[in-house]
């Protein structure tokens, strides 16, 4: 069961220096109001775990642009020259992780698994600092789980309790991250009464969602 909270109050509960997982893929499925609040409240020194940093002015790109990010665990920054510049200038520490491995590490964090055993990255520089394991005649990397202080997730629809469903490619990392953080804050495009979303359509159950961002009145 989630508590209903304003975007401002939700973000106010996040301290400087927090580790945040943020859903989305190139901005699709990244919670827009929570991102804007992070910028408005000038949260400092954030560690962000996310697939990418989108483009300047888009999604997580806004956090980079505002200089709020000190560390990134991500699979791709090639579409955001600002991220690359801050990395080269030493302002952001970047840990690059293969995308499938990133997904599994977040899942492992949320699912109580001790790590991930993957063939991806074996023999490349992504294997540096990783333990390897031989199983059934093949070599794999052992990748550690990821957890966060907060997960900021974006859903297409939530019910009043915080049961979430996602739409198309905006799903991506959101359901995985909703399992892997101490505090889960969900923003939804629309919020409907309990029972409106069929049980088989709900991807994230309300029991893992701590806060649901309240509706804002729409003009029009």
């Amino acid at each position, binding site marked *: 069961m989630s508590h209903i909270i304003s975007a401002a109050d939700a973000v106010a509960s996040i301290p400087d220096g927090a580790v945040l997982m943020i859903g989305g*893929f*190139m*901005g*699709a*499925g990244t919670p827009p109001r929570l991102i804007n609040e992070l910028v408005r409240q000038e949260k400092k020194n954030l560690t962000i775990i996310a*697939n*990418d940093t*989108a*483009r300047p002015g*888009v999604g997580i790109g806004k956090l980079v642009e505002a200089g709020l990010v000190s560390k990134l665990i*991500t*699979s*791709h*920054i*090639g*579409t955001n020259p600002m991220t*690359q510049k801050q*990395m080269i200038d030493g302002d952001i520490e*970047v840990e*690059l992780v*293969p*995308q*499938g*491995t*990133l*997904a*599994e590490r*977040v*899942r492992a964090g949320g699912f109580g698994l001790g790590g991930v055993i*993957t*063939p*991806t*990255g*074996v*023999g*490349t*520089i*992504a294997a540096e600092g990783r333990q390897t394991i031989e199983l059934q005649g093949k070599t794999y990397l052992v990748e550690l789980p990821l957890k966060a202080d907060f997960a900021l997730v974006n859903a*297409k629809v939530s019910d009043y309790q915080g049961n979430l469903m*996602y*739409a*198309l*490619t*905006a*799903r*991506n*990392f*959101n*359901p*995985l991250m909703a399992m892997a953080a101490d505090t889960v804050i969900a923003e939804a495009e629309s919020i409907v009464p309990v029972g409106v979303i069929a049980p088989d359509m709900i*991807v994230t159950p309300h029991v893992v969602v701590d806060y649901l961002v309240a509706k804002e009145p729409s003009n029009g």
Partner: protein
Amino acid sequence: MDSKTLIANRVAQEMKSGDLVNLGIGLPTLVASYLPKGIEVSFQSENGIIGMSMLPHPGLLDDDLTDAGGNPIGSVPGACAFDSSFSFGLIRGGHLDVTVLGGLQVDERGLLANWMVPGKMVPGMGGAMDLVAGAKRVIVAMTHTAKGTPKIVKECSLPLTAIRRVDLIVTELAVIEPTDDGLVLREIAPDVSVEQVLEATEAALIVPESVPEMAFVA
């Protein structure tokens, strides 16, 4: 045909009906436009969909339906959406029949480097490492040289994407197949000579007695 069209067109001939195909960003994306008639494949986008298609109309842009580059796409009837762990389960688990990727270098072992130039460009590997490690068939679609500098080299100087040998290299000059014995020149582009290919290639190429011209189907 310009170089890109030629490469995309030739790569498209490699597809078989029923294949699940992942096209990398950039040049590989063009492959979808040149599928031979009657060949029906499914396109996966690793951000979480099988059944992506071109967007039919600019008025239908959808924030929730994008390709791995964040660009709006459409979907075909029977499309299926899923999260990132499932998407890479398809890739890593051997369910993806073909991936077409760009390349910075491929070497005599058939190993690919395509995700960073140390000190210059560090975009990150995105899904490339999983794709090369996991796809049943890896096709590299790239220009033969980078402004004259050979990209098919003795040994990659750039960081590898995986230690798995790729299955085919298609450039605007040639089709080259990495094998146990080395890189075999399988086809040459129209109006290109074997000598021209050899000259533009740093790696040793095995040249069979006869090298046919690239085949295209309208």
